[in-house]
């Protein structure tokens, strides 16, 4: 992409809009203007050409009429003198009368061919002319040498009347003139004898005044060319007789002007453009022949005057165009500003929003156009975003709080559980191991064991309903109560009953706890136990796993009237009792299937050769394997007692062991 494009891309919408519209408008205007100018110029040119031709012809008529009046008398005199030789006096009267009465005539002459007037005189040429307003009469003689003068020689040889080229009549009229000569002759012995010519001169100064009075536009002018292309009349005095249209063309090296000149002297007429050097500005020439003299009249018209109307029209159209352009520019700026200002505003505000400042209100737009719609959409987006962010903040806070509560709860829970295994290394009668795999949220499982007097082991596994800190605290309370009450009561049922009652007090949270509690006389293997709504433990005896028979019993902390009963079995050597929470049996795998009681029994059967520690850990592991990637919903607690058999030998090691 070019630099300009990049610059263009970087410009505002208003600028692009203005540029494009104005460019298009300008192009359209220019095209229309050029066409209109061209066609009106064509039309006007035709009209101007016709006008100029008419003007030229009218001027030519004027000149022709004047020349015709000059030509009349010489023709008449030539006719007369051909008939009979006039006396010098008659000639004088004829010539002076003619010069006096025709204002156009500068001079008149009757020039006889050598020896033609009468034999004794070689040259005879009386000449009447005006000098300083007075009439002069003279004879042209040897000194003048008129037989070789063009005005005499050429008409004589051509035997027809002729206007001469312009010349300075030295020794004659002493003026720059053109001479009209009519030859006359007499038939002698059947031969035409050339007698001489009758002439009439016109002063070119006079002719210049005549032509100068023809007004052509403002500064246009007319000029006359002789047959040779020499200026017979021209506003520039210095051109007359001296310069020709061809010498001007040669000077300016202009073949164009030369061609115009050639057409002019060949009697052509036309309306063509002049080379610019002639007037120093564009100009046109209209020309046509002056028939009787064989001259050509040219009328030079400056182009600006010829096309004055067109130029005025052009100026007006350009003025209107410029005005319209400015107006259009203003309107475009106005419109584009009204579009871009809200957009710019919107862009500014949304940039703020993008930075996270959602409280900045978007500009209100009452308009129903696209910008208004966009503005409203942005406002809705902003509000939705703000609400969402607010919600997100709340949720995050709650989550953080909860997470911290759970952490506290777990700390409470775990801090209350025994951690030292094996717990009683000195006691040989049994092995005990417990494992608790906490769920992400505190499940409220608990276990405990401690030795009582007389070689007894109290152990329990419970599960507090509810979660979180209340559950953890409840669990701690329960455990503490059990510990305290175990000092006072002898049987598991009594303990449970009393714990339940204690828990009922101020149990506003309405929490409860399931619990299996047993007291094992490890010397005898007698196990007394009671149950408060807990899952039945598994007894593995002789490689076979089975449910431990259970008395009925309600959850602890629910009803004052709850009744717990004791049951007693006697453990045999190598019996294993597996106490667990519902986190084991109610574990679900990825497909939502329960771990199930049956699977528990099978797994425990399969572990018949294992010690307490291995069994607990293997069982927890089997649950983990079963669940796979399914989330763990509840704590998993397994407590295993491996009864190794009683014997006094082992009691001796017991610190508090008292055999009663």
């Amino acid at each position, binding site marked *: 992409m070019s630099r300009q494009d990049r610059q263009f891309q970087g410009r505002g919408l208003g600028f692009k809009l203005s540029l494009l519209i104005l460019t298009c408008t300008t192009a359209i205007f220019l095209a229309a203007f050029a066409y209109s100018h061209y066609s009106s110029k064509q039309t006007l040119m035709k009209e101007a050409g016709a006008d100029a031709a008419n003007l030229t012809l009218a001027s030519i008529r004027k000149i022709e009429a004047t020349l015709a009046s000059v030509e009349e008398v010489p023709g008449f005199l030539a006719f007369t003198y051909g008939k009979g030789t006039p006396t010098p006096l008659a000639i004088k009267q004829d010539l002076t009368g003619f010069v006096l009465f025709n204002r156009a005539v500068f001079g008149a002459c009757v020039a006889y061919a050598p020896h033609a007037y009468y034999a004794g005189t070689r040259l005879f040429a009386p000449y009447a002319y005006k000098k300083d307003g007075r009439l002069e009469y003279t004879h042209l003689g040897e000194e003048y040498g008129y037989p070789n003068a063009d005005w005499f020689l050429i008409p004589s*040889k051509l035997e027809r009347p002729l206007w001469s080229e312009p010349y300075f009549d030295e020794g004659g009229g002493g003026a720059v003139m053109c001479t009209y000569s009519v030859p006359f002759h007499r038939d002698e012995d059947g031969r035409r004898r050339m007698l001489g010519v009758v002439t009439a001169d016109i002063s070119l100064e006079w002719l210049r005044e005549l032509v100068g009075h023809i007004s052509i536009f403002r500064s246009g002018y007319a000029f006359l060319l002789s*047959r040779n292309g020499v200026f017979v009349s021209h506003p520039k005095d210095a051109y007359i007789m001296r310069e*020709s249209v061809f010498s001007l063309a040669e000077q300016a090296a202009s073949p164009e002007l030369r061609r115009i000149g050639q057409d002019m002297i060949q009697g052509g007429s036309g309306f063509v453009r002049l080379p610019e050097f002639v007037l120093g500005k564009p100009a046109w020439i209209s020309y046509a022949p002056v028939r009787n003299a064989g001259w050509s009249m040219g009328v030079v018209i400056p182009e600006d005057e010829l096309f004055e109307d067109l130029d005025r029209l052009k100026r007006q159209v350009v003025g209107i165009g410029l005005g319209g352009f400015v107006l259009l520019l203003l309107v475009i700026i106005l419109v584009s500003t009204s579009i871009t200002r809200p957009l710019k505003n919107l862009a500014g505000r949304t940039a703020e929003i993008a930075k996270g400042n959602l409280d900045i209100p978007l500009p209100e737009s009452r308009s129903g156009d696209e910008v208004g719609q966009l503005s409203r959409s942005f406002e809705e987006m902003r509000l939705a975003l703000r609400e969402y962010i607010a919600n997100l903040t709340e949720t995050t806070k709650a989550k953080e709080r909860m997470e911290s509560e759970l952490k506290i709860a777990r700390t409470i829970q775990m801090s209350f559980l025994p951690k030292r295994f094996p717990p009683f290394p000195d006691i040989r009668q049994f092995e005990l191991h417990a494992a608790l795999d906490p769920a992400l949220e505190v499940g409220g499982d608990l276990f405990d064991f401690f030795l009582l007097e007389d070689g007894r082991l109290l152990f329990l596994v419970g599960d507090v309903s509810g979660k979180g800190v209340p559950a953890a605290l409840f669990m701690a309370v329960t455990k503490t109560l059990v510990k305290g009450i175990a000092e006072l009561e002898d049987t598991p049922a009594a303990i449970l009953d009393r714990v339940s009652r204690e828990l009922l007090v101020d149990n506003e949270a309405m929490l409860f706890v399931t619990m299996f509690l047993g007291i094992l006389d490890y010397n005898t293997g007698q196990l007394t136990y009671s149950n408060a709504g807990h899952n039945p433990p598994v007894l593995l005896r002789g490689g076979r796993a089975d449910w431990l028979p259970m008395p009925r019993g309600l959850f602890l902390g629910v009803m004052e009237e709850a009744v717990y009963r004791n049951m007693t079995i006697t453990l045999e050597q190598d019996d294993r009792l597996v106490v667990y929470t519902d986190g084991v049996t109610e574990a679900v795998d990825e497909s939502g299937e329960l771990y199930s009681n049956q699977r528990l029994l099978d797994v425990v059967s399969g572990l018949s050769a294992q010690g307490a520690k291995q069994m607990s850990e293997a069982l927890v592991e089997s649950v983990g394997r079963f669940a796979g990637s399914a989330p763990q919903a509840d704590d998993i607690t397994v407590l295993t007692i491996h009864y190794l058999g009683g014997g006094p030998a082992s009691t001796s090691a017991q610190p508090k062991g008292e055999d009663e």
Partner: protein
Amino acid sequence: MPSRIRTVIAALAVILAVLGESPAQAGPLKKASLIPQWEPQAQFAGYYVAKAKGFYEKRGVDMDILRGGPSSPPSKLLAEGKALFGTMFLATAVMERSKDLALVNLAQVMRGSTFLLVARKSSAINRPGDFNGKRVSLWGKEFSLQAEEFFKNAGVQVERLPQGFTVDLFLRGGVDVVSAMYYNEYHVLLNSGLDPEDLTLFPLRDYGLDYPEDGIYCLNSTFKADPELCSAVADASLEGWRYAFEHPEEALDIVMGHVEAARLPTNRMHQKWMLERLREAMLPTAGRQGPGPLLAGEFEAVARTLAKAGLLQKPVSFEEFHVPAR
């Protein structure tokens, strides 16, 4: 071009050296007058320039250049003592000498002929033989000498009409052929709207008639009385020519001054053409010297032709006719 101009200048310098510079006169200027053989025009630029630039005065000559024209032939003015010096065609001078006008040639300025016979293409005159029966306008006797020789050589009979000061008779269709000098009338024809391709030219030098034209003359008595004056006039005139070719615009200004004073129907462009053609004609070429003393060969050729044409009343010798080189 500049190198050619330099050649001309060098040649003129040599000539001047040959003729010898006249020392500037300490005393009063000697009165003298010169009559050109035609109306004021660039054909005489050298003389007008020599006067205007003071080349005559420098040599002690108070020169008056007379107004030339058809009614003032130099031979007549010299004979009548109205002019001391004049320019003439060589043939004219030889003829006058044979008529007992004791002219001597002081310098030959134009060594070749620029004379043309011009016909319109439309009159179908393409070869000398085509002139038979055609109307030809000719100048006075000595100026028609070459043409007459041409007609004689071609074996044609023509109808002769006098040619005045202009070519208008030809332009009006009064004649089929017009006499013209290449540097003058030919250009007048062109500047009357005729194009070169409309015209057939017969330059007579191409037909063995290359007669020398303008030279400076005086009466033998003048030369005998004051040879220093004569050589001063010749030297100053040739210096004038040299200056005119070096400064054509200035020379044209000077010429136009004389033209305008005479109120002649001509213009600067025409005079410019004339001066340029003259420079070409006066330029020394391989077979031709520049302006300088008359050569015996030139003289003999013209004298022989004139004698054969019966135009010499008595023989003229080169010895008496020319001024020997100093």
